[in-house]
C-alpha cells in the first residue's frame, strides 16, 4: 500500500485545464472530420487557454499566503500564479495565430499541433511552480519535448525538421547539465526541496562547498540554455529561424517567462547564501548576452534571425534584473517579462504574416513597403520595434528603466552603463527594420510584394497582434497596477 499525498487540486487546476484541453485536441485528430478539424482544435485551444487564464487569475487572488502543496512539491503562491497568467496569455495569442498559420496548405497535424501547444504550456505552468529539483527537471523535460516536436511540425518546410533536431540535441545537453547540477546539489545537501536545500546549507555551514557551488553552476548553465542567454545561446538563431514562425513566437515569449520566473525562484529560495556568487555569475552572463546578442544582430539580413539575436540581448536585460536579486529586481523582472513577451510575440506574429504572404524567409530587402501595404501590422511592428529599443512608445521603456534601476540599487552603476550602451547599439538594427518597412517603397526595390492576389485576410492574427499591441502600449500607462501585481508576486519569495 502506497501512501498517497493529499492533493490540493485547485492549486494545480491551471495545469489540469491545459492538459485536459490537450487531450481533447488530440482526440479531435481522430474523431473530428478533417474539414472541421482546424476550427475544432482552435476552439479547444482557445477555450483551454481562457480556462487556464481564469484559474490562474483565481489562484492569484486566492493565494495571498504562499505555501507548498502536494507533499511540498509545488508552490501555490502569487509568483506561480502570475507567471501562469503570462504563459496562458501567450498561449491564447499563439492559438489565434496558429489557427491561420500552422500546417498550411494541408490541414495535416493541426490537431496534434494544438495538443502539443497546450501540453507545453501546461508543462511551463507546472515548471514555474516547482518546489523541488525533481519536479523542476520533470516539468522542464515535459515542456521541452513538446517544443521539440512543435519546432519540427512543418517537416516538409526546409529548416523546420533541422530546427527541431538541433533544439532536441542542444536542449538535451542543457537538460543534462541541469540534471547533473541537481544531483550534485542533492549530494551536497541531501535534500531536493528548494527550501530544505537553503536550510541545510545554512544549518550545516555548507556555503561555498565545492560540490554545492559546482551544482549551482550547472543548474545556472541549464537554465541559461532554456532562457537563451549567452554563452548558452548557440541554438537560438538557428532554431528560431528554422521553426515555424508561430512556434518561434511562442518559444521566444513563453519559454523566457518560464525560465526566468523559475530561475529567480530557485536562486532566491534554494541558494540565498550563495547570492554573492550567482549575482556576479548572472551579471557576467548578462554582459555576454548583451554583447553577443546586439553585435550579432547588427549584421543580420534575415529578420527572423535578427529578432532571435535581439531576444538574446533581451535575455541580457532580464538577467540584469535577475542578478540584482532584490525585491526590486524581482518586480523589474516580472514587469519586463510581461512587456517583452507581448512585444516578442507580436513582432514574430507580424513576421509570420509577411512570410506567408511572400512564401520565402523575410529579409530586410523583401520587407520593403510592408508598412504601407498592411497598415495595421506595420504600425504594430513599429510599436514593437521602438519598444524593444527602449523608446517610450510602450512599456519597453519603463521595463528598461526598471531593470537598470534595480542594478543601480544593487550598487552596480557599471551595469547601468553597459545596459545603456547595449541599448544604443540595438537601436541601429531595430531602426533598420522600420527603415525597410516604411522608407523604401517596394516599387523602388522592384520586389513583387505578393505572390499572386491580395494578401490573405487573417482576422485572428490581427486580433492576436492587437492584443500584443494593447499590452505593450498599455503597460506604459498602467505601470502602477502592473507593478502592484508584481510586488505581491515577489513578496511570496523569501528575501
Amino acid at each position, binding site marked *: 500500500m502506497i501512501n498517497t499525498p493529499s492533493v490540493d487540486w485547485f492549486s494545480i487546476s491551471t495545469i489540469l485545464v491545459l492538459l485536459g484541453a490537450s487531450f481533447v485536441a488530440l482526440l479531435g485528430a481522430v474523431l473530428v472530420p478533417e474539414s472541421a478539424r482546424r476550427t475544432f482544435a482552435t476552439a479547444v485551444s482557445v477555450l483551454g487557454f481562457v480556462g487556464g487564464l481564469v484559474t490562474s487569475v483565481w489562484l492569484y487572488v486566492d493565494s495571498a499566503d504562499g505555501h507548498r502543496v502536494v507533499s511540498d512539491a509545488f508552490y501555490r503562491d502569487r509568483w506561480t500564479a502570475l507567471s501562469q497568467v503570462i504563459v496562458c496569455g501567450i498561449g491564447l495569442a499563439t492559438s489565434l495565430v496558429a489557427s491561420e498559420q500552422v500546417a498550411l496548405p494541408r490541414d495535416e497535424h493541426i490537431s496534434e499541433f494544438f495538443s502539443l501547444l497546450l501540453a507545453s504550456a501546461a508543462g511551463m505552468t507546472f515548471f514555474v511552480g516547482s518546489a523541488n529539483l525533481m519536479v523542476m527537471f520533470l516539468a522542464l523535460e515535459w515542456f521541452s519535448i513538446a517544443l521539440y516536436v512543435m519546432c519540427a511540425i512543418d517537416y516538409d518546410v526546409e529548416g523546420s525538421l533541422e530546427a527541431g533536431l538541433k533544439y532536441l540535441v542542444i536542449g538535451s545537453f542543457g537538460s543534462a547539465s541541469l540534471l547533473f547540477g541537481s544531483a550534485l546539489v542533492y549530494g551536497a545537501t541531501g535534500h531536493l526541496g528548494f527550501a530544505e536545500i537553503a536550510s541545510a546549507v545554512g544549518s550545516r555551514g555548507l556555503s561555498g562547498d565545492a560540490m554545492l557551488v559546482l551544482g549551482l553552476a550547472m543548474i545556472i548553465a541549464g537554465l541559461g540554455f532554456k532562457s537563451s542567454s549567452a554563452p548558452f545561446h548557440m541554438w537560438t538563431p538557428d532554431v528560431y529561424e528554422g521553426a515555424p514562425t508561430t512556434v518561434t513566437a511562442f518559444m521566444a515569449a513563453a519559454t523566457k517567462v518560464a525560465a526566468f520566473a523559475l530561475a529567480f525562484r530557485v536562486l532566491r529560495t534554494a541558494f540565498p547564501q550563495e547570492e554573492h556568487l550567482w549575482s556576479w555569475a548572472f551579471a557576467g552572463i548578462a554582459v555576454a548576452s548583451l554583447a553577443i546578442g546586439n553585435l550579432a544582430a547588427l549584421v543580420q539580413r534575415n529578420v527572423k534571425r535578427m529578432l532571435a539575436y535581439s531576444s538574446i540581448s533581451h535575455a541580457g536585460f532580464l538577467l540584469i534584473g535577475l542578478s540584482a536579486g532584490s525585491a*526590486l529586481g524581482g*518586480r523589474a523582472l516580472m514587469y519586463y517579462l510581461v512587456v517583452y513577451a507581448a512585444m516578442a510575440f507580436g513582432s514574430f506574429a507580424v513576421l509570420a504574416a509577411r512570410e506567408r504572404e511572400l512564401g520565402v524567409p523575410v529579409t530586410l530587402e523583401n520587407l520593403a513597403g510592408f508598412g*504601407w501595404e498592411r497598415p495595421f501590422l506595420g*504600425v504594430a511592428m513599429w510599436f514593437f520595434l*521602438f519598444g524593444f529599443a527602449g*523608446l*517610450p*512608445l510602450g512599456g519597453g*521603456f*519603463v521595463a528598461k*528603466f*526598471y531593470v*537598470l*534601476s534595480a542594478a*543601480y*540599487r544593487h550598487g552596480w*552603476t557599471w551595469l*547601468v*552603463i553597459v545596459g*545603456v*550602451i547595449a*541599448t*544604443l547599439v540595438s*537601436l*541601429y538594427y531595430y*531602426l533598420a527594420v*522600420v*527603415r525597410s518597412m*516604411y*522608407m*523604401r517603397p517596394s516599387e523602388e526595390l522592384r520586389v513583387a510584394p505578393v505572390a499572386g492576389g491580395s494578401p490573405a485576410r487573417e482576422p485572428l492574427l490581427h486580433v492576436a497582434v492587437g492584443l500584443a499591441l494593447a499590452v505593450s502600449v498599455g503597460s506604459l500607462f498602467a*505601470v*502602477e497596477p502592473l*507593478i502592484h501585481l508584481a*510586488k505581491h508576486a515577489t513578496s511570496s519569495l523569501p528575501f
Partner: protein
Amino acid sequence: MTIADFTSLLVWLPFGAAIAIWVLPLSRYATGSLAVLVSLLEVGLWIQQAAHFDFSHGGIQFEQRARWIGDLGVSYHVGEYGFSLWLVGLTVVAMAAAIGYGFWVGRERPRAYFGLMLFLTGATVGVFVAQDLLLFYAFFEAMLIPLYVLVGVWGGAGRLGATVKFVIYTMAGSLLMLASLIVYGLQAGTFDLVDGPTSVSRWVFLGFMFAFVIKAPLFPFHGWLPDAYREAPPEVTAVLSGVIAKAGVYGMLRIAIAKFPEPTSYYRTLMLALGAAALVYGSVLAFRSTSFRGVVAYSSLAQSGLIAIGLFSGTNLGYDGAVLQMIAHGLVSTVLFLIAGTVERRTTTDEFALLGGMAKGRPALATLLLTVGVISLAVPGSAAFAGEFLILAGAFQRAWWWAAIGAAAMVLAAMYMLRLISAVLHEARGSTVGDEALDLRPGELALVVPLVGVLLALSVWPAGISHNSFGGDQPTQSVEAQFK
C-alpha cells in the same frame, strides 16, 4: 475643467488627434483640415493659459500630478514656469505653421504624415511642461520617433543616411541622460524636478549635458545637423531648428543649471567655451555655405551657442536674454525654413548658384524674407537684437572677452544673412528662376505673415518675454530659489 487641466490637455490633445487620424479613414482634405484645426486649437489653449498666467511672481503654475511609478518615486507631474510657458507658445505656433505648410503643399500619405506631426507636437509640448525627470526623458525621446519617420519617409534623396546619423547621435546623448537620471533619481529618492534636491555630482551633470549639447547642438556635437536639416522636408526642418533644438537648451536651464549649481559653476568656462565655439564656428560655416538651408542651418548652430553663453553666464541679464533669444530665434528659423521651402517649390533647388533675382515681380516674398533676415541679423530694434544684447551684457558681467567674442559673431551674422538675402532676391536672375515661379500664394502668406507679425510685435516689446520669464527681475535668484 480648470485652467491647470489645460497643461495636460495641451500635451494629450495632439496625441489623441494623431490616433484619431490614424484610425479614421478620412480623405486627404479632411485629414489635413482636422490636423490644422487641432493645431490651431492648441494655439487657442495656449493663449488662454497665457492670459491666466500670473507673471508677477515666480514659481510653477498650472500644476498637475498623478501617480505613475510609485515605488521608485516617479510621477506624472506637469506644470509651467514663465519661461516654459513661452516655449510651449513657440511650440504650438511653430507646429501650427508647419502643419499648415504640410497641408498647403499636399504631402503624400496624409494620414501618416499629419498623425506624426501631431504626435511631434504633443511630445514637444510635453518636454517643456514635464516636471518629472523620467517624464521629461520620455517626451524627449518621444520627439525622436515621429522625427525619424518624418525625415525618413518625406525627406530628400539622402534621407536614409541623414536619419541614421540623427537618431544615433541624439540617442547616444539621451541614453547617457537615462543613466544619469537613474543615478540622480534613486539617490534623491524622487524623480520630481520641483521637489527634488540639488546634486553636486559632476558625472551626473555631464551625463545630462551630453544629451543637451547634442540636441541643441553645440560644437563639436553638431555632426548630425547639416544632413538632417538638408534632407528633412522644409517644414520639419523648420520645427527641428526652431523648436526641437530648443529642447536641448531648455534642458540645460531646467535641469543642468537648476539642479546642479556646483557642477555648473565648475564647468562654466568649458560650457561658455563650447557656446563660443559653436557661435563662431557656426557663423563662419554659415558664411561659407552655398545654399539657403545651409546658411540657416549653420546659423542655428551659432544661435544655440549664443543661447548657451547666455545661460552659462549665470547672470540675470544672461538668463533673460537666453529665454528671449530662444523664442526669437525659434520664430526666425521657422519662418526662414518655411520660406526656403517655398523657394524650393518654385525652383527645385536651394543652391545660391542657381538662385537669384527673385525680388523682381515677387514683392511679398522679397518683403517677408528681407524683414525676417533683418530681424535675424539683429538689427537694433529687432527682437533678436534685444535677445543678443541681453546675452552679451550678461556675458560681459561674467568676463569681458565672452562678450567680445559674441559681438564679433554678430558681425558675421550680418554678413551671412545679407549674403543670403542678396543671393536669393537680388543679383543676376538664377538659371532655375523662371517667370512661372509665382510670388507667395495666399496660403503661404497665411502661414508666414502671422509668424512675422509675432516677430515684429516682439521687436516692439521684447520685455514682454524678457521680463516675464522668471517672475521678477532677478532670474538668478529665481533659478536658485524657485526650483527648490
